[in-house]
């Protein structure tokens, strides 16, 4: 009985950790995608100086 509770607890903890990691990935994607777009737009315009 005690082992079952421990297993359930460990499983819940593992799920929480996975969802937390997913949230971190989503949050970083939300901020980095627009930034990457802006940097790309800027880089495209600035390559002419190296030609």
């Amino acid at each position, binding site marked *: 009985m005690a082992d079952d509770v421990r297993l359930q607890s460990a499983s819940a*903890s593992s799920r*929480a*950790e996975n969802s*937390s*990691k997913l*949230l*971190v990935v989503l*949050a*970083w994607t*939300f*901020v980095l995608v*627009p*930034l990457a*777009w*802006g*940097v790309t*737009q*800027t*880089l495209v*315009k*600035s*390559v*002419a*100086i190296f030609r």
Partner: protein
Amino acid sequence: MALLSFLDRERSIAKPGFNRWLVPPAALAIHLSIGQAYAFSVFNKPLTKLMAVSQLAPTDTLRALSQSKLVDAVAAAPTDWSIPEVTWVFSLAIVFLGLSAAVFGAWLDRVGPRKAMFASAMCFSFGFFIGAVGVHLHQLWLLLLGYGVLGGIGLGLGYISPVSTLIKWFPDKPGMATGLAIMGFGGGAMIAAPLSVKLMGYFHALHHGVGTTGTFAALGVIYLIYMMFGVFTVRVPAPGWNPIGYVPSEHPSKLVSSYNVSVNDAWKTPQFWLLWIMLLVNVTAGIGILSQASPMSQDFFPVRITAVIAGGFVGLLSIANMSGRFLWSTFSDYIGRKATYLVFFTLGPLMYVLIPLSGRIRSVSLFVFCCFVILTMYGGGFATIPAYLRDLFGTRQVGAIHGRILTAWSTAGVLGPALVSYIGKYQTDHGVPKAHQYDLTLYIMAGLLLIGLICDLMVRPVNEKYHSPEIPDTSTMRVFTPAPERTRG
């Protein structure tokens, strides 16, 4: 009321299991939004043609012209705003950024980052909405009040709101954490500039006009949503929390204080004013390059660099500014803040002196390299200052102290361009050839950085008489403090 209580500091304390790596994206969302301010210049020309374009007949020929071509082709009407009038909007916003950061810093430390971020989002977005009404009615005072005053307050609140929270979440790498957020302020313009141009093109095609009213309103909505992500995501660590496995150094630098200094006492210390001068000279010198980058590149290399290429070069400097904010502040976690500023104030003057040489030997590569390095250090100076303040004054009121020190930025915002234009006029009046007109300015900027070097060398630990009597700062003190919550590092 439920929403207002959600904004309380108590409601934003992280629960067990909260991943601290969620906090930097929340901070970035705020800084990427308010970083739009540096792209305000894309509106300068369109805002000076509002009346002229509205008086044109909406013929197919005119509608076929793209928004930018139309704005270029049409002469301003007598009732249109002038460029100096429009540039006041940005200047006012920067002045209110510094003022609000200084005035509201202590309030922010009291109420927590969530309420401050919410207030920032409201001010910044409603600044756009009021600005849109001002543009629609062609009332400059509404634009100044909306974007300049209200938006400026939003900028100041947004700029400092995540900084102290990040320092508390990352006591092991405070430079990197604040650099991540402040990097967003440098990067925000790179998103806002192309986005604003695209929106103006869209609203120009949709309605007859320049498209700025619709663009202002749309940006208000976009930034409100984006900043709300930061409001809902940000958390503060529980009191006494430290990352798992984090052990403060046994032999910390003498400059890293284990005690807190209140914002009212920080004012009275020489360290505060030394850092204030260091920020002032670093920003003034950076503005010296930023404000002249385009004409200087064309005058140094008249055949090689055209106006279009110079525009791209300025964009490249924005990337340097942004990346420097993250790289230098992260580097400061390893070599220390004082050493980082020593690099800025020794490498910087060398770069400034090399720029005129690059023009004489016709080396575009050397010119671009020097400007790039200078702009990384310009951004690095902004991003490393919060961690330097934390080292000297502790974490308790670092947000408020950071807010006060940003008055140096506002001062440099006025001093830098004034100095550059005065020296430029002096050189022109004395018949100095165009390619050599920048030399004196650059040498003066190098001299300013040497003043910063002296200030940095003079920085010593804060006198004990300024230490607050309450509990020392556990994030920098080697004491056993059982973490109340297990939170992944």
